[in-house]
């Protein structure tokens, strides 16, 4: 008798537990995306448009509601890792998107790999996804590699018969990265680097560096900086009478740069994602439609001329998810380990997906998947971006 009651109780408990567990999975059936962006701190000018873009992405993918958990990592590596840990342990996310900058993204790789959660970074460095090893299996990224951009520059330099180039870049990972990438490809094209200078984002003057560059008599100067601080050397070069060609990197591709640099930036060349000149792309360009879609969405929400290429990296991350989630849903339910694994596999299988910055063709060895369609050369003309044909 006693044992019977005990048994009955046990069954009751079990049933209750199962019911609870079931309702829990039902609630978790939404696809949860953990997004960490650098909306404050030094990378804020990149992180803010990304954050704005997150508000524009679709609310449902393949009929499943998407729950987005958005956190700010203040451009800080430790905070980014903390956010990633919070995503996997507390929020039980299916995928992590972020972060904005390379150091933070590199540090988050461990968290993603350990918890077997796919991660899509919005930072540029090739080291985030290359080589695809046991940890980086889980990691994808949407921005072009610096190498892709620097080959575009050296190609343009060769065609313009530029032989002597001076480099001035940020004294941080971005400037160093570009210096190394550029030195590598410049050598292959027999371009001589005659000066190699650094400056700080917060510097109030680059007179010394600029004088040294001019004394080296280069045909062209490449400025390895991001955002409006990259205008400082350009203005100083013009002020000191430099007449050669000036190249910038895709890090300056937002309208604030044009505003700050003004007429001193006329005639500057830079490589950029096609989204920057979406309307000028030829009609047969596969990227044109997908890039225009983003530009229209963003400008409808934030006003004409507000779009920047950085926000498009966040957009592309969600485009990847939109393409990969349906395949993963066939295999498992969101909120489970199996779903995360299926999503990772599905991301690797994304083929011929036109997005704002190019066309994705992922493979087990390439977790970026962009080809030369992901970059165009752009010239600054009449205070606007002009596609160089």
């Amino acid at each position, binding site marked *: 008798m006693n044992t019977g009651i005990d048994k009955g109780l046990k069954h009751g408990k079990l049933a209750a537990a199962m019911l609870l567990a079931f309702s829990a999975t039902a609630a978790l059936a939404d696809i949860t995306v953990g997004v960490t962006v650098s909306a404050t701190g030094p990378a804020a000018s990149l992180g803010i448009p990304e954050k704005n873009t997150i508000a524009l992405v679709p609310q449902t993918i393949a009929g499943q509601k998407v729950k987005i958990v958005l956190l700010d990592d203040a451009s800080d590596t430790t905070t980014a890792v903390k956010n990633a840990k919070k995503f996997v342990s507390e929020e039980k996310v299916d995928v992590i998107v972020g972060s904005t900058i390379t150091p933070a993204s590199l540090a988050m790789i461990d968290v993603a790999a350990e918890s077997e959660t796919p991660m899509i970074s919005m930072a540029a460095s090739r080291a985030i996804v290359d080589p695809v090893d046991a940890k980086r299996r889980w990691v994808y990224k949407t921005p072009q590699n610096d190498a892709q951009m620097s080959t575009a520059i050296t190609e343009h330099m060769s065609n313009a018969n530029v032989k002597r180039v001076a480099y001035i870049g940020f004294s941080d990972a971005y400037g160093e990265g570009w210096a190394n990438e550029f030195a590598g490809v410049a050598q292959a094209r027999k371009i001589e680097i005659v000066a190699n200078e*650094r*400056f700080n984002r917060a510097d109030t003057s680059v007179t010394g560096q600029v004088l040294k560059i001019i004394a080296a008599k280069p045909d062209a100067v490449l400025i390895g900086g991001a955002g409006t601080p990259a205008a400082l050397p350009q203005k100083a070069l013009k002020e000191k009478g430099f007449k050669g060609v000036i190249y910038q990197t895709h890090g300056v591709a937002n309208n604030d740069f044009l505003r700050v640099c003004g007429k001193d930036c006329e005639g500057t060349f830079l490589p950029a994602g096609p989204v920057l000149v979406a309307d000028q792309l030829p009609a047969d360009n596969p990227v044109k439609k997908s890039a225009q879609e983003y530009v229209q969405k963003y400008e409808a929400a934030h006003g004409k001329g507000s779009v920047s290429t950085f926000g498009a990296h966040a957009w592309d991350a969600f485009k990847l998810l939109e393409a990969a989630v349906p395949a993963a849903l066939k295999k498992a339910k969101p909120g489970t380990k199996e779903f995360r694994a299926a999503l990772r596999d599905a991301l690797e299988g994304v083929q011929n997906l036109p997005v704002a910055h190019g066309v994705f063709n992922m493979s087990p060895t390439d977790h970026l998947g962009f080809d030369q369609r992901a970059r165009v050369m752009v010239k600054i003309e009449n205070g606007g971006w002009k596609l160089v044909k």
Partner: protein
Amino acid sequence: MDFQIALLLGQDGLTNGAIYALLALALVLVFAVTRVIFIPQGEFVAYGALTLAALQAGKLPATLWMVVALGAVVVAVDGAIALRHGAMRRLPRMLALNLGIPLLLWALLAHVETAGLSLIAQIALTLCIVVPLGPMLYRLAYQPIAEAPVLILLIVSVAVHVVLIGLGLLFFGAEGTRTPAFSEGSLELGAVTLQYQTLWILAISALLILALYAFFGRTLYGKALRATALNRTGARLMGISTTMAGKLSFTLAALIGAFSGILISPITTLYYDSGFLIGLKGFVGAIIGGLVSYPLAAAGALLVGFLESYSSFWASAYKEVIVFTLIIPVLLWRSLTSHHSEEEE
């Protein structure tokens, strides 16, 4: 490096050094009078420049809301104290200074197209908005703990700095701005071309330094500040209010900071967080002056400017390292030559 490059670098160093010197003077002033190491000094540089840029773009600068809000808090705090002590006489003046003037400014700015005003009017408006933040910050953050040890004041300074940086991002966004030069063009002087803006910076810095000298030497308020700096207790016994002295020194620091920002924003792009590094370099200058000597602080700041300029030519990647390493031999030399007394702590 030929003679012309040396001259150009010297000119650059002198320009930056002049700004660092102004900030160093403000830091020495604030420290001498209130014992506060005023880390947020640099924020006033950024606030001044960005507020001016907002006015020139025809926008209402968000610093205006900050003045109104801080003013309201000051009135609430001071008003409560005055009510408790039944000192109604103090109310009108307090209301007028902390709430009346900001609200008047707001009404003015809401009805005037600031983009079309003359530069002088824009600068005056900018100073009217930014400078009151100085004494208000003193009232709210430092006055309640005016007698605390230097270390606690320093910690509060760090907190105020972090808050102001965060608000700066909120107010002005992450992107920087440049304002047009006071007067375009340049002056040919033999081998060197001097930008007019450079001349403006040098002239106005020199004028400000002279004005400060006259203020401390000739006016009653200046002498009161000096007395407080020399001996707080003694000054109080002589009837000098240390609260007044603190507010006055913060007003001057805010004025110098905001004006420095206005001066350099035509020659460089300023961001919500640029002020910190500029202020830090002024601080290195102030340290060379031992945080007590004005002429030594100014000279030290000029040295920082020159060092920065020449090192940016020779070893641009190590520029900041060189500038901030300067502080080590200076501290060594000071600790060896001065006899330190532990009366403060």
